[in-house]
């Protein structure tokens, strides 16, 4: 705070207002973030460590965790590739429909995930447009793992590209041109020049993408079919446990999910810090 309120800034609040603002923020955060999070852990352990351990090692929980990790990993990989390609496309080429593409990219952020899930059911479900065709090939997408992966990928599409576009826009393509002239192939240029230069932004985007993927409920809920042990992700599993009044177990799994989120946040923070130091040293990658 002191840093921002140095003598040379035009905004100078009185000490009282500063303290009030800080207090208000702290109270708000406690009430809406820290308190609920604490409650989750408190409830999780309310029936003792033994019960907690049982809940989190229950086969159904393990299977849900497994599925969540698969879906998140798929989303991260898909969107890393798609995000780099899309960011490169919109930052290095000017073409008709570019603005439209940039807008379309944000659809998953704007549309309710439930709607997204419904769309997949309509398209790929048993009675969907491609349903008969998929049935003929004996491919099951909806109410199966592929459907969950699809839904997760869909809702996380914008995260990587949105992080990369400003970074790529700023650095331009001259380093890539230099690499080409020095004899590097397109693939070598991507691997040796582009990715190292954008790696922190990319990592940051992937962390965000992962956090969203693990927590996704709405879209996944629609396409999953809630088949225990097979198509339940962690958020869905928690809902089921909760609806069956197994509060301790529900909160135990919740705490696990919250823990994963906290780890993700920690990674994000580290990435951010390194990214910032990198920028301050005038080089995004020399660490």
């Amino acid at each position, binding site marked *: 705070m002191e840093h921002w309120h140095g003598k040379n800034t035009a905004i100078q609040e009185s000490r009282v207002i500063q303290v009030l603002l800080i207090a208000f923020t702290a109270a708000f955060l406690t009430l809406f973030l820290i308190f609920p999070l604490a409650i989750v852990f408190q409830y999780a352990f309310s029936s003792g460590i033994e019960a907690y351990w049982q809940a989190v090692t229950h086969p159904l929980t393990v299977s849900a965790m497994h599925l969540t990790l698969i879906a998140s990993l798929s989303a991260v990989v898909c969107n890393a590739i798609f995000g780099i390609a899309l960011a490169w496309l919109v930052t290095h080429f000017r073409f008709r429909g570019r603005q439209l593409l940039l807008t379309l990219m944000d659809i998953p952020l704007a549309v309710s995930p439930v709607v997204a899930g419904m769309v997949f059911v309509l398209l790929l479900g048993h009675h969907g447009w491609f349903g008969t065709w998929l049935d003929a090939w004996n491919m099951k997408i909806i109410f199966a793992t592929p459907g969950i992966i699809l839904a997760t990928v869909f809702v996380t599409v914008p995260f990587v590209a949105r992080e990369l576009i400003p970074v790529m826009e700023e650095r331009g393509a*001259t*380093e890539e*041109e*230099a*690499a*080409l*002239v*020095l*004899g*590097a*192939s397109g693939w*070598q240029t991507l691997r*040796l*020049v582009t990715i*190292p*230069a954008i790696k922190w932004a990319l990592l940051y985007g992937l962390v965000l993408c992962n956090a969203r993927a693990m927590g996704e409920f709405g879209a996944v809920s629609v396409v999953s079919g809630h088949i225990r042990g097979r198509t339940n992700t962690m958020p869905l599993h928690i809902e089921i446990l909760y609806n069956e009044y197994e509060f301790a177990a529900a909160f135990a799994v919740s705490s696990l999910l919250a823990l994963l989120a906290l780890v993700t946040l920690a990674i994000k923070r580290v990435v951010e810090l390194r990214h910032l130091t990198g920028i301050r*040293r*005038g*080089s*995004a*990658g*020399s660490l």
Partner: protein
Amino acid sequence: MTIELREVLKKFGEQLVINSVSLAVEDGELFVLLGSSGSGKSTILRVIAGLVRPDSGCVLLRGSDVTQFPPQKREVGVVFQNYALFKHMTVAENIEFGLKIRKMPAAQRRHRSDELLELVGLSGLARRYPAQLSGGQSQRVALARALAYEPSVLLLDEPFGALDVKIRGKLRRSLKAIQRELGITTVLVTHDQEEAFELADRIAVVERGRIVEIGTPHQLYHSPQTEFVANFVGGGNVLFGRYNEGRVRLGSTYLPFPGDAPPHDEGAPVRMLFRPEWVIYSSDASQIEQGSLPLGKGTMRDRLFGGATEKLRFELDDLRGSQSIGLSLEYGQRGTLVDGVASSLAPDIPAIGETRWLSLKRCHVLQPTSLRILTKLEAVPIHAGLMETATHLGGASHGLLSLLSVASTKDEMSSCKDLLEDSKAAVLGARRDIRLTTRVRIGDPVVETVLESQEGYFDLVLLQRSSRNSDTVGSFPGIARHVLVSAHIPVILVSEIGSALKRVLICTAGGEPGKSDVRLAARIARHTGAFSRVFHVRRGDMSANEVARVDRHLSRAQAVLTSFGVESDVLVVEGEPLRELQKQIDGGAWDLVVIGSSSQTLPDTTAKPSFDAQVVATTSLPVLIVPTPE
């Protein structure tokens, strides 16, 4: 020849960025592309590097066509404008990048990068990151990186652009030394003329995607061919005069026409260049240096201290009316401004307001290539044909197109200005690369047009024909005759039909082919890329001697066309001139008819119409009428 471009053309969208550029760079040469920003010089460099693919034309490196090759296959070293160092790699890794790609073993790479760091004077910085380097150091790393895999061609895009003036000078020397030591063929792009002079073996001046002129720094400075280069390279005085019996008339002063200057027709505009340091001043007419060319008496108007030298500006009354567009007169001044220069230690620098006798050590006449065209607009309606022809000709000749509107009273001024604005927009809409000026004058249209064509030193005046084509007198406007007879300036009469002037018929039916009409036709045909025919109608009763003489004239005329690079043929027929010409015009899909003006005096309305008027009456094609000297 290590690098060769052949008629390279590149458009970005609608905009022509490289306009048919051809050049050849010799082995080991340091070749500079000099031009202002946006002139297309960097794009030319990128075409050589393979980063921009031309729409047409080809690029040859070391004798083989690489037009379709990607940059990786061209083996050229490039130093980019902002160096484009890889920020996440150390200096050594940057330099070794090209070698690593080429799979050179690590130990060898290390050795090579040490060698290069020593060459560019940066030993010991191998482990630094680009962010830890100064601008000058970054530039040298970029140079080392470009040279690492020993390319046969080095390309540099404004390599000193981002550096302090002091470091620039130092790095220029070191670049030149390295280039000489390695003997590597180099192309450097810059907007800085001083840099170009210091570094270049040869310079190509680039303007609007074209190469205007190529030459050694010495040639471009002391004897440029075009007005653009004369003004762009170095400071200079370009004055307009007229060729007058072996001399050049500038205002009321006469200078001898230099023996090595390109041939000019009698009365043709002459553009005379003299650099400031060619101007000598002395306090007394009797003290003018032996062998120098007296210019006249000048009044000191301005002096600017510049360190080693002082810039002087004189106003000369004797040169009145010869001012180029380079320097514009202050309100109330009417003489011509001449720039000079003196050592700042010179004891006799005149004070402002003092007068001196000026003379020249030498002067240089520019090539009469680009055309200065005056187009007189009629009030209403604007005929599309006139504007179209003016646009084609102005665009093709890369000269100056001036639009004139004459208001008979002050009240008409605003409508004349509107007309000019509309016409200007129409011309620029069709061709954006035209140098265009507009002018309104008040008074009698005939008098003002004649005056403007003289005062502006135009090569050519475009006029609208009177609309009534059937009326012989009417179709040859009086204004044209006045311009021809009083101003001695060629006229093109245009009817409703515009023309790209691709086929030119030079008609010598009325007599022997005049030198001036053939030469002007050749200049136009060269610019528009036209085919030309020299057409002659012979009388049936000519003696063998006369026939031989005419044939000699015709073959000389064709030689002139060939020397201008114009494709041509000669056709001789026998018969009645006007009728034969009519047949020729009807049968040939011609765009322009060129004739010499046979009339030396203003027409007497009762007399029989002159030959040129009769030709104009027989065709609706644009007709170029060239005044023949007495």
